[in-house]
């Protein structure tokens, strides 16, 4: 297993390096800004004194490389700095936001993953049937829908017309688990619909790819029952591609969560990010973006590693 650990460590290192490069690009972009972020934030009418005071407050009077190193040191030691808008320590409030978002993503994944795998498997097994064609057309259509369109349609039917779910998901920490789950269900359902189409199409493609390989045909030819072919011959080799599909789509979920949280006024990281962008609260945006980027890179890494583990040939690239 030593070569496997080596590969995993290599990938992890690459991921950390990517995050580092991203932070460098951001720092560089701040420097590129014509004029200065203080002027942009305070407006044209700000007096030179206020601008100078504000610059000193957020540390803009120091040279760029020192500022960057300090930020980097803070990030590594768990100190994300202060919000420009509320003046509060970012680490104070980002934790609950993050756990809310992870909860929402978790619920969505718990619904979407089994459903997509099941429907994708069916579409692959009965390919070119009417069921398969309907699935193909509906998924192609739903991929083209903006997330907020799906969200408002669900609100209209499941909240306004029938009154089953609340239209706003204002969860808080003192809520009981069941209550929290209930309020999270509608945004989670939206996210499910958003990723379901992608996941289903990819599962279908992965399984069809597998079923066309010679050893499956051999199993059929020697008279094995279809169900046994799936469970004993196809599935052991399918886990790799399937986990790959799941990891890739969970990464996709990271993006969808931003819009969905805003629609449902769900107090998660995505909403915080959008709010901070409109207030131009750079430290908060930086912190949120780094977390989102880290999760995204980590999930992609996971799918990479799983595909390597499930296919030993990739362990020894020629």
């Amino acid at each position, binding site marked *: 297993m030593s070569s496997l650990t080596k590969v995993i460590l290599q990938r992890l290192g690459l991921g950390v390096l990517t995050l580092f490069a991203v932070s460098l690009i951001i720092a560089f972009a701040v420097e590129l800004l014509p004029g200065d972020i203080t002027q942009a934030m305070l407006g044209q009418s700000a007096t030179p004194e206020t601008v100078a005071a504000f610059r000193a407050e957020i540390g803009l009077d120091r040279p760029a490389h020192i500022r960057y190193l300090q930020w980097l040191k803070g990030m590594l030691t768990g100190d994300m700095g202060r919000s420009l808008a509320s003046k509060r320590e970012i680490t104070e409030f980002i934790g609950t936001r993050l756990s809310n978002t992870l909860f929402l993503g978790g619920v969505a994944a718990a619904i979407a993953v089994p459903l997509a795998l099941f429907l994708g498997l069916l579409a692959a097994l009965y390919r070119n049937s009417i069921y398969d064609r309907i699935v193909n057309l509906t998924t192609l*259509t739903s991929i*083209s829908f903006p997330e907020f*369109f799906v969200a408002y349609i669900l609100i209209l039917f499941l909240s306004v017309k029938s009154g089953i779910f609340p239209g706003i998901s204002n969860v808080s920490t003192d809520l009981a688990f069941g209550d929290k789950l209930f309020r999270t269900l509608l945004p989670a359902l939206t996210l499910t619909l958003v990723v379901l189409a992608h996941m289903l199409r990819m599962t279908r493609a992965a399984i069809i790819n597998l079923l066309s390989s010679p050893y499956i045909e051999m199993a059929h030819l020697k008279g094995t029952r279809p169900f046994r072919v799936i469970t004993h011959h196809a599935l052991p080799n399918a886990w790799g591609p399937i986990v790959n599909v799941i990891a890739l789509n969970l990464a996709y979920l990271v*993006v969808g969560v931003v*819009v969905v949280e805003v629609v449902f006024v769900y107090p998660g990281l995505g909403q915080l990010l959008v709010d*901070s962008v409109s207030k131009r609260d750079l430290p908060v945006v930086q912190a949120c*973006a780094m977390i989102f980027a880290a999760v995204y890179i980590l999930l992609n890494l996971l799918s990479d590693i799983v595909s390597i583990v499930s296919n030993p040939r990739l362990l020894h690239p020629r």
Partner: protein
Amino acid sequence: MGKLILGAPLSAKIGLVIILGYVFTAVFAPWIAPYSETAIVGSSYELWTEQFIFGTDNIGRDMLSRLIFGARNTIGIAFATVIIAFLIGGVTGMLAAILGGWYDMAISRLVDILMAVPSLIFALLLLTIFGTSVLSLILIIAVLDSTRVFRISRSAAMNVVVMEFVEAARLRGEGMWWVIRKEVLPNIMAPLLAEFGLRFCFVFLFIAALSFLGLGIQPPTADWGSMVRENAPLINYNDITPLLPAAAIAGLTVAVNFVVDWMLHLSSGLRSD
């Protein structure tokens, strides 16, 4: 060309007709729309009447007129963005394929980094730094999206630059620009065109999402994404008006996807024989 379109599958034909409808609306918006996009013509949230077919919006502007002008603004901005993305990505991609060496290495690594982070997250970061104006919106998304175009045009051009006719052109002493324009570009046009449709869908949805979040196209410009946001409260009163601009967005992306599906099929078929 006419024969090609007549032989297209039904879904692609429907898609083409829908796209033409959108383009027509966008071009002739001032003549079709009953009111101006910014004029306040009634009280806020008026119901659907003969005077205001889809009612009025949150500050009393005619919904139908804003939907029609929205076609022009939303599609126009997305189209401009994709064009710029293709200019940047296409040229750098082809150059990377032709020059190779350290230039290829440097740009490819930069693209890898930009693609390692979701573009929505990157765009939000850059919008914080540069502010939310239409110009910065177009440039930021164009640059982020050009990474995808770079990948495609580089890998497609890679297969072309090793051909004898390109070598012959270089030995003749033709300049770099000539090689790109006359030798490489015509041979990678088919995959680039299909990619153009896909990228347009992506950028269009992306800008709509940003506008919906209040960070894209700014008021009072009529734009479908922000119109959904402005009129969203109506949904709680069982009124489907806010769904109209969202449906307009979905309609165009579905239509473009149908056409792209057919084009991908076509270009893969042409390449295999």
